[in-house]
């Protein structure tokens, strides 16, 4: 798998904008600043993340909402990878353990936020699926054995 195959942008996995919106809140930016200009969102997000902590304006709840989105992102990736079921035995074990930890973190943050906790949007997961599938298909094409199945569009995306 080349780096190009596995490189994931935030825009791809955050189709709903929930993640970027939570980041905008704690980073002192407007949602429009992060979501407005197509193609620059990743750069804008990196800029926001590079801000020193003092510049963050979010209160505890907003910071926790951002953390929650991070946990959604992480747990979603491991769940999806396990569901696709193409990991090696060792990677599957890692994904199982780490994924369980991310889920536990997610539950703790949700319990702290109570009814204010942002819902997990479905839009995160299919994109992971297509990304992981594509990376797998690229590897498959190089082996020239599964090219036909890779050409089939992902039924879940």
């Amino acid at each position: 798998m080349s780096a190009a195959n596995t490189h994931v942008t935030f825009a791809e996995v955050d189709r709903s904008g929930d993640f970027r919106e939570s980041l905008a809140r704690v980073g002192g930016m407007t949602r429009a600043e992060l979501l407005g200009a197509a193609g620059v969102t990743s750069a804008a997000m990196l800029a926001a993340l590079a801000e020193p902590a003092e510049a963050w304006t979010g209160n505890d709840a907003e910071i926790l909402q951002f953390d929650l989105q991070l946990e959604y992102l992480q747990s979603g990736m491991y769940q999806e990878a396990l569901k696709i079921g193409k990991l090696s035995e060792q990677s599957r074990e890692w994904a199982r353990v780490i994924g369980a930890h991310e889920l536990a973190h997610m539950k703790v943050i949700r319990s702290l936020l109570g009814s204010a906790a942002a819902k997990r949007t479905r839009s995160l997961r299919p994109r992971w699926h297509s990304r992981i599938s594509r990376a797998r298909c690229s590897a498959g094409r190089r082996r020239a054995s599964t090219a036909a199945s890779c050409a089939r569009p992902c039924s879940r995306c």
Partner: protein
Amino acid sequence: MPSCEVTSRREFLERIGLAGAAAAVGGVVVAGVPGWSAPTGDDTAILNFLAVVEAAQAELYMQADMSAALSDDVRRYSAVAGEHEQKHLDWIRETVGGRFQEPPTFDFAEVASDEARFLDVAVELEDQAIAAYNGVAGNLSSALVVRAAEVVSVEGRHAAWIRDLAGVAPAPSAADPATAASQVTAALRPYAAGGTG
């Protein structure tokens, strides 16, 4: 016997220059953690305590470097981790400045002469370091919390690495426990140079 235990712990803390930190460890009970006491909001006492933890680790890895009994994988780990611990110690020394208390001397020569024993102790010290940082985090001033977070995550990486080399779960739980400073120093005590007090 509890009274002996208290006396010897006190002697140990005095010997390693932790009497001040031990006094500070006194009465603050953290909400939600029964029986758990944390140092008071004195950054200097807390950092001097963390310096003891870092010094123990740095000495362990320094002696690993001089040992002929360890495998290449373990020596490679020790070289990397040892450099980190030394940098952590330097950071604490610079931050505390004139009120820095020299940590005690530790002796891991025997530990480093046997790979199985070394792995056990390295796992123990890394876990203790994480627990120590977690334990004091709530009482550090906010600027130092950020710096300490940057350090404790590296201790977590060390713990996962050495745990993997030791053949135990690299990430055993979703959250690592916080430990009182007195428990951490008690765990380090057997490794203090010049006997176990």
